[in-house]
């Protein structure tokens, strides 16, 4: 019996499945606790306390409110799931899933650790990693557009129109921003980007402009403040998710937070050295022992959390941009800046190599 189980894990597909489950098992709680973190941090910034009651069910142990995701989850599951009569049902039902799925699929190409045993810690070690990522990230907009269209109501529709315009604009700037990274690295594989950074300085120091543009574009891609025009509740009620309730609404929420995690992970991989730390060879060479491998994964998750924290923090700091300002920044500032950055990098590389 045991032999057959260990034999099973020699199969590549079984290992792949195990990795998928492991990533899912880490990311789902991260999504849940990102929501709690958002609520607590927003409360502290606004001189409130935030949810601090829910602990272990049926006891008086409060645990600083860490049981909150459970309560939220049960609440969204048992709430009435209302489908308004005027919606286009098939699209209406499909939209939340379409928002959630791309964020998770992006994580497939992210190398979240060095090695664990003989296994590379990435689900799909694609040679076109970053192209795949951009392809999938742009699918995220379909969920929102579909939600707005299927809701057949004016506010969701306006929200989805804004979203599509915003995401397309910022995707270009985002794509252009990472071109210099790959000019330096010479490979589109995300693992190669980390190897490049392991042997030298992190790319955030070599490409600060690219990093800044990419960071801001990620804010826009994940519909976070100051770019949350698609759901701007002061003007559009709740934007594209106005007509949604219950678990479907929660799926939109989870999609947003999963996208935040995916975006943070991408930022860590592309600019902040992935699982590496500039603290000697132990943190910079692929792991040989199990403990070292786990430590590398922990480093990666910690870095991702730093970026998640930044995204949450910024949300409670800045007001929303006006629509024309948003478009101005995207097309008139970031796009030229990223193009100039490409040319600058090309010139520097040409000078250095000739």
């Amino acid at each position: 019996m045991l032999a057959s189980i260990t034999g099973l894990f020699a199969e590549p597909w079984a290992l792949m499945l195990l990795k998928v489950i492991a990533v899912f098992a880490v990311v789902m709680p991260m999504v849940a606790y990102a929501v709690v973190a958002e609520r607590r941090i927003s409360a502290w910034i606004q001189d409130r306390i935030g949810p601090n009651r829910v602990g272990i069910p049926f006891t008086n142990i409060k645990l600083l409110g860490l049981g909150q995701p459970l309560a939220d989850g049960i609440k969204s599951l048992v709430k009435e799931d209302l489908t308004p009569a005027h919606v286009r049902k098939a699209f209406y039902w499909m939209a939340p899933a379409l928002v959630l799925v791309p964020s998770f699929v992006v994580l497939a190409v992210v190398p979240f650790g060095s090695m664990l045993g003989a296994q590379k810690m990435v689900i799909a070690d694609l040679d076109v990693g970053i192209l795949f990522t951009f392809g999938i990230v742009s699918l995220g907009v379909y969920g929102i557009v579909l939600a707005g269209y299927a809701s057949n109501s004016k506010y969701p529709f306006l929200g989805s129109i804004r979203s599509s315009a915003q995401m397309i604009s910022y995707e270009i700037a985002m794509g252009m921003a990472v071109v210099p990274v790959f000019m330096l690295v010479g490979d589109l594989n995300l693992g190669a980007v980390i190897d490049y950074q392991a042997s030298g300085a992190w790319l955030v120091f070599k490409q600060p402009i690219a990093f800044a543009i990419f960071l801001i574009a990620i804010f826009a891609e994940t519909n976070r403040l100051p770019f949350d025009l698609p759901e701007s509740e002061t003007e559009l009620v709740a934007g594209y998710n106005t007509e949604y309730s219950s678990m479907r609404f929660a799926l939109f929420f989870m999609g947003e937070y999963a996208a935040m995690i995916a975006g943070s992970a991408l930022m860590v991989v592309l600019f902040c050295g992935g699982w590496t730390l500039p603290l000697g060879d132990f943190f910079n060479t692929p792991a040989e022992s199990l403990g070292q491998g786990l430590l590398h994964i922990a480093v990666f998750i910690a870095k991702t959390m730093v970026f998640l924290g930044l995204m949450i923090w910024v949300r409670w700091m800045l007001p929303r941009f006006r629509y024309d300002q948003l478009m101005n920044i995207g097309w008139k500032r970031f796009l030229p800046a990223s193009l100039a950055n490409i040319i600058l990098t090309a010139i520097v590389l040409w000078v250095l190599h000739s």
Partner: protein
Amino acid sequence: MKVDRTELTWWERLYLPTLLNGFKVTLRHFFSWKRSGVYGDKQKGYAAKTTMQYPEEKWDVPTGYRGAPYLVKDVDDKTKCVSCQLCEFVCPPRAIRITPPGDSGVVDREGAEKMPKEFEIDMLRCIYCGYCQEVCPEEAIYLLEDYAITGENREELIYDMEKLLALGGADKRAYDHHVQDGVGDGIKKWETKTREAGEQAKFH
């Protein structure tokens, strides 16, 4: 209306000063654990920031607060209500229901003709307007400081006379009046009112 927009300098248009200011302000608030007294002195020193952690901490009920109407007893622990039914009549949402004693009127104090056989207030209907307190000639019903009226079913929230008297307790105001001024029996409101009005009307 035409709004004049101030021309931003090159530095300001980078959004960087705004960003830095934002980081500064949010950080300051994030790390500030100043005590707040927005809900009254009782909260000071307990609560961090401005949130009141309700069931554990409660706000100071201001004087003159109109909470739930309860029946009060006089200084000798006797029922003040004389079943005149004025409050029942004046009550806008008809929350009060008084069952008069009929022929078998029993009273537990001197000077009263009768007392109610049953006195019910439906706390779900009460709107805390205070008309009953105002109209009562015997100062027998007061809007006291209770604001959290909770129950598990509707029947539970119809308070009967026993409960109302227990919750109301002795009438502090009548007691003070009785002891300090030594005037009357501290019960009949209109006597007091007339006396006060007479004092005010005196030519100084």
